[in-house]
């Protein structure tokens, strides 16, 4: 698993055709639209509000007291393993499921008594749910016809939507005459045709093959940027959530574990569960030895002292976990001179060569096993580090996060 902080998002958004904003001004903070973090603005009115929403199916609690605010023009991703309740949450917003407890508000209006066909939200279904008996145009026009829109206006909107998803000339085809990628575009066009207040996307890219999925991600971002719409997406694919979303809501067992921008979820996970679910991580159990000025010293249970550049909200003697991403560890065949602290010696137990990166599993002298991943910057003719080699692992005090829960 190779999860990068979502810098690519900024790069691509800046590359978009006809985008007036230069890339530089958009590159202010990785993962955020520059100057746009409505969730951080006090008093900002959210567009969608989940208030202590509970959903039970029989005796099973699928969603357990979820409170969440989503703001106008935000691209929000609900990320979690299958069965964590993320799809149920989305379906409650669409109106297909009714909350057992709590309220869902859109624009401040309680949606409880609004049936799905009257909600100003549209959904792109996971299997696309295109009407097989209708043409591409018929599918896109379906929602517009329900509104009693004039024929000429419908035709114009359909044409506009076909252009938007680059399917001009495909209007008369039936869904079964399209490729998977084209069907995905039709589903997107159909959901966007009514200009919903919120577009819901249920695993929008999961049915596409890898190459197409990566291309489509960037198109989705451009689309959301250009249309100025609010997107709420459900996904189990963390790469997808990282690249697409402004904020990610990480869900576990019906609850929101963390809601934060992608970089924060990756770099400052708030719990062991989130750290472990998003990306690869090494968790080292330890006891707080001392908390000082911007630095905490932790004694690893297995032995050794580790320094962290962070004030930990824990008293000396408390049990904590040090979370360390594999790519933030340096691996050397000699003891590194620069590191006086956070240096651990061990032996290479396993190597996985993936082309762009290599993963190492290192068995430390203190008994712990750490995962390390190194970008292969030069062409590998001969492995510089082999099985059974004695190595030294080191990491900066800023590279890791201390988790108290």
């Amino acid at each position, binding site marked *: 698993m190779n999860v990068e902080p979502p810098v690519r998002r900024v790069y691509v958004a800046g590359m978009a055709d006809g985008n007036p904003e230069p890339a530089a001004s958009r590159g202010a903070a990785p993962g955020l639209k520059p100057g746009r973090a409505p969730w951080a603005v006090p008093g900002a009115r959210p567009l969608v509000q989940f208030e202590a929403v509970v959903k039970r199916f029989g005796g099973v609690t699928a969603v357990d007291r979820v409170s969440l605010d989503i703001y106008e023009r935000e691209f929000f991703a609900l990320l979690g393993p299958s069965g964590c309740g993320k799809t149920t949450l989305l379906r409650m917003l*669409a*109106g*297909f499921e009714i909350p057992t407890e709590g309220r869902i508000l859109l624009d401040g209006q309680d949606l409880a008594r609004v*049936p*799905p*066909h*009257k909600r100003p*939200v*549209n*959904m792109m*279904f996971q*299997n696309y*749910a*295109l*009407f*097989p*008996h209708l043409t591409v145009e018929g599918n896109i026009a*379906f*929602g517009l016809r*329900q*509104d009693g829109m004039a024929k000429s206006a419908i035709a114009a909107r359909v044409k506009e939507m076909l252009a938007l998803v680059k399917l001009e000339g495909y209007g008369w085809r*039936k869904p*079964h005459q399209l490729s998977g990628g084209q069907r995905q575009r039709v589903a997107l066009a*159909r*959901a966007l045709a*009514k200009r919903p207040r919120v577009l819901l996307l249920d695993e929008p890219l999961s049915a596409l093959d890898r190459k197409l999925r990566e291309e489509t991600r960037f198109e989705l971002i451009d689309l959301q940027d250009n249309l100025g719409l609010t997107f709420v997406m459900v996904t189990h694919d963390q790469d997808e959530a990282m690249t697409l979303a402004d904020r990610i809501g990480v869900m576990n067992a019906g609850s929101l574990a963390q809601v934060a921008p992608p970089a924060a979820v990756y770099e400052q996970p708030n719990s062991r569960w989130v750290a472990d679910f998003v990306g690869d991580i090494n968790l080292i159990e330890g006891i707080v030895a001392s908390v000082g000025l911007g630095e905490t010293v932790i004694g690893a249970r297995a032995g050794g002292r580790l320094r962290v550049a962070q004030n930990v909200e824990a008293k000396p003697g408390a049990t904590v976990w040090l979370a360390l991403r594999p790519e933030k560890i340096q691996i050397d065949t000699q003891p590194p001179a620069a590191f006086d602290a956070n240096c651990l010696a061990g032996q290479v137990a396993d190597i996985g060569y993936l082309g762009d990166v290599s993963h190492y599993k290192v068995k430390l002298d203190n008994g712990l096993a750490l995962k390390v991943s190194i970008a292969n910057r030069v062409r590998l003719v001969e492995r510089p580090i082999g099985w059974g080699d004695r190595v030294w692992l080191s990491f900066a005090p800023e590279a890791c996060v201390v988790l108290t829960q």
Partner: protein
Amino acid sequence: MSDTGASGRRSWGARLVILIPALWLTVLFLVPFLIVLKISLSQSVIAQPPYTPTLDLTGGWQAVRDFAAALSFENYKLLGSDWLYIVSYLRSLGIAFAATAILLAIGYPIAYGMARAPRGLQPVLVMAVFLPFLTAFLIRIYAWINILQREGLLNETLLALGLIREPLIWLSTDTAILIGAVYSYLPFMVLPLYASLEKLDDSLLEAAADLGCPAWRAFWLVTVPLSLPGAVAGALLCFIPIVGEFVIPDLLGGSGAQMIGQTLWVEFFSNKDWPVASAVAVVLLVALLAPIVAYQRLQARALGER
């Protein structure tokens, strides 16, 4: 190299697979049809067999020519000129049409209910639709005589409920034929409809609702169009055999006007006029060919969509 070998074996096997139905259809359908067609072009005589000419291949080429010269379209002209046959055909088509319409109206809600029933219950319901077949067809029609007669179950029930004062005449009417036909053919309507409704993806109805379509309109815009192949299949499976039905009109219908199956029976067994009976059968087949071809077109289109 091995590829060509494999594909060679496979194409040989594929040919054999096609050969079996082709042989079946040739021996059991095409050959008998050609015999019937030949007889329909002959004339009735009191002899064994009861028609002339007969083809005697021992006579050589001349015999074949004589035989061909003796064939005529006289029987078909008779069918076109005698109102008995025309009325018979029209009546059969009319009754079959009415019965099919009623079957569709009754069968659709049943099939819809079955498709919407809990998954575990559905096989039981399919079994229940089949259940009447466990009793012989003839016995079930005889049972209807009992129900529909003057002192039968139907009149007794209606009298007891106070819905009628005098017993109504059911038996020996067209109503009785329709009741019998609808009862007998219902499974043929319900099962194809159920098969197409059961395949219907629930997310399509959710998509319709999501796009602003209330449930009743989604039924007309999504459910009905997508169950159309099932409805057409069911309608043809009912309509075609009902047109040629003999047992139901013979046992439940009146002695006045006949359905074409009865006319055919009379020609064969009472009048011993095999050529005219054969002509009746050929015309019936041609008349039914149109819906069959329409059905096959639909099937081909449905297959293309898979």
